[in-house]
């Protein structure tokens, strides 16, 4: 019994010692983090006003493995390399808006000279962006606006303008009659909904005899998109076009149309131009898709912050602007997909130096 007690005591002592070591290690780690915050928080290299040496920018996006955002990264990195800026591209691999905002806040705490954000949805950024701008750290939005408009500049696709060629191609494919199905990504996602909220009223106005179904949501799952597309084909004998708002939705819908042998009756149109969509265009399974300019938007964002810091430094609060600078789009079709012009609207899967 005494041996048991002794063993228990030794074991307990060992546990206490382990706990103490763990506590000290954790405290040290936290202290390190805190001191890191303090150091970097005061390390803005443009404080002197106009100095652009050793600038450090952080670019935050969500779903950073998606080819659209990979292309943004390529554009930002190339421009940063040209200007001699240290740029980090960070964010969650999912389209979790809350995780993206957290990533932005964490990055902001490291004291960058400028920040760029590609918000997956436009709400919820006020508490993160405004304080930075007031501290003299310029923030530029790409791909989506911020609500309220706290950024100094915004570079996004003009969805109204990009809807025009979509209206034309859908009108051409349907001859103004029949049903159009719509497969979107998810509810409450403005980046996604912008791709049909301008398009649907424009289609209804131009082609009043078209029936446009409510959006179905596939959550970026090709399998779900396939299920939806096959059900739309079955349930709507006069279905003529399926419009998919992004790549995985288009891939799923293409598979369903092919499986149903309905390629002659049902045409597929989509938004975005990731590599899978380009392959579908080349094989004729996709009639048209809208290519955006994520590379150019990101490049402009880096340049804009650089120019601002060159002129103003970071001593004073950065003025916010609700002005939106549209970036170009191109309707890619099987006819033009191989052209030089179309090449600049196709998304990349890796950047120089990857």
């Amino acid at each position, binding site marked *: 019994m005494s041996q048991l007690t002794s063993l228990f005591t030794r074991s307990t002592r060992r546990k206490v010692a382990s706990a103490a070591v763990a506590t000290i290690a954790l405290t040290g780690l936290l202290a390190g983090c805190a001191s890191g915050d303090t150091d970097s928080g005061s390390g803005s290299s443009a404080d002197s006003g106009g100095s652009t040496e050793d600038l450090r920018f952080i670019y935050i996006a969500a779903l950073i493995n*998606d080819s659209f955002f990979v292309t943004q990264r390529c554009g930002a990195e190339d421009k940063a390399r040209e200007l001699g800026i240290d740029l980090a591209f960070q964010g969650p691999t999912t*389209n979790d808006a809350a995780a993206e905002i957290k990533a932005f806040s964490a990055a902001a705490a490291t004291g960058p000279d400028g920040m760029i954000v590609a918000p997956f949805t436009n709400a919820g950024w006020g508490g993160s962006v405004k304080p930075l701008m007031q501290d003299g750290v310029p923030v530029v939005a790409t791909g989506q606006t911020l609500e309220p408009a706290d950024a100094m500049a915004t570079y996004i696709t003009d969805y109204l303008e990009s809807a025009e060629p979509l209206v034309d191609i859908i009108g051409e494919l349907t001859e103004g009659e029949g049903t159009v199905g719509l497969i979107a990504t998810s509810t409450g996602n403005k980046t996604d909904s912008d791709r049909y909220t301008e398009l649907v009223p424009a289609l209804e106005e131009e082609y009043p005899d078209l029936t446009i179904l409510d959006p179905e949501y596939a959550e970026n799952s*090709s399998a779900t998109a396939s299920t939806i597309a096959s059900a739309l084909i079955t*349930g709507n004998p006069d279905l003529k076009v399926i419009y998919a708002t992004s790549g995985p939705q288009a891939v*799923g819908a293409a598979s369903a149309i092919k499986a149903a042998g309905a390629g002659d009756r049902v045409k597929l149109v989509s938004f975005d131009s990731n590599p899978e969509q380009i392959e579908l265009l080349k094989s004729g399974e996709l009639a048209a898709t809208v290519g955006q300019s994520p590379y150019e938007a990101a490049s402009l964002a880096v340049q804009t912050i650089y120019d601002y810091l060159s002129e103003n430094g970071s001593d004073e609060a950065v003025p916010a602007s609700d002005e939106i600078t549209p970036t170009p789009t191109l309707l890619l079709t099987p006819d033009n997909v191989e052209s030089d012009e179309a090449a600049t609207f196709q998304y990349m899967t890796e950047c120089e130096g990857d």
Partner: protein
Amino acid sequence: MSTVTKTRHDETVSTRKPSAIKRLLTNNTFWIFAVDIVLIVFFTIVSIDNSFFGPSNLRNLMSDSATALLLGVAIAFLLGAGEFDISLGANLILSSVVAGRIAVELAPYGLAVIIVGSLAGALVTGMVIGLFNGLIVTRMNVNSLIATLASLGIVTGVAFIVSSGTDVTGIPPVLQDGVGLNTVFGIPLPFLVAIVIWGLAWAALKYTRFGLHVLAMGSSRTAADRAGLRTKAKITTLFTICGGLAGVAGFIDITRFAATNIAGHTQDSLSAITAAVIGGTLLAGGVISILGLLGGVILAVILANGLIVIGVSSYYQLIIVGAILIIAVWLDHFKKGEKSLRLFTR
């Protein structure tokens, strides 16, 4: 076809053998299929030209259920043994990425070589992930829910590294035409593969010692240990086999879409657990219903397809799916009561 290892003490003891209709009404899987049939009839009547039950849509339903059935079999066996695996969706993604990359490399060598190479790659990847999970659970004594939650992150991360963070493209279309969208006697090939594996799973559960041991471990791990079963080895084996099933599901995925979908499949494990539990497999272990699993998978597939076929708006779909799931599970419990027995056999 459901296998139960424990006695239900709350059921009325009778010296007479219960009638066929009584046995049917108290069957674990009867009600789930009853709900399926009611929904099929409803969607068929309401759909334009009864297109819901047309041959084209039946093929859609079968194709849609292939992956869910494979993951469902895996999760049913794990639940039956008292374990969880919520990394099956991530396993599917990594397996599909490996299979996709192999398929791209083997593109010049013809369909047979592509199939063998990419299927082997997916299967081995899935089994390695399953083995990894099994070893963590059995050798490090980490609860399987936590272990597979951790491996979900690890496996997803590895999938992103292997794929350079983007979907694998350039998968030869011949794989899609020859396997994913191919049919045999009008039945989609992916569904045939899934239903054969489902049948083998049923046979393994009913006729093999391994199936019996799985249920025994799920009923009481301690008792199984004391009975001399090498439970750690068997649980590791089970995880490995189930990982292999997720690998096959990953292969089927790339054959259907000729591309990987690394942003998808986040809900696959949860959907598989739901289908298995609705079908009568117990979360607490010890009970597996393979036939019921088929009913649960069919229910999910019918709802996902049928509500769109009849034109229900997506917001209402969420409410209707939730309500029908509650009704399906409630009926399963309801039939167990004495009152319902009297009601239905009157």
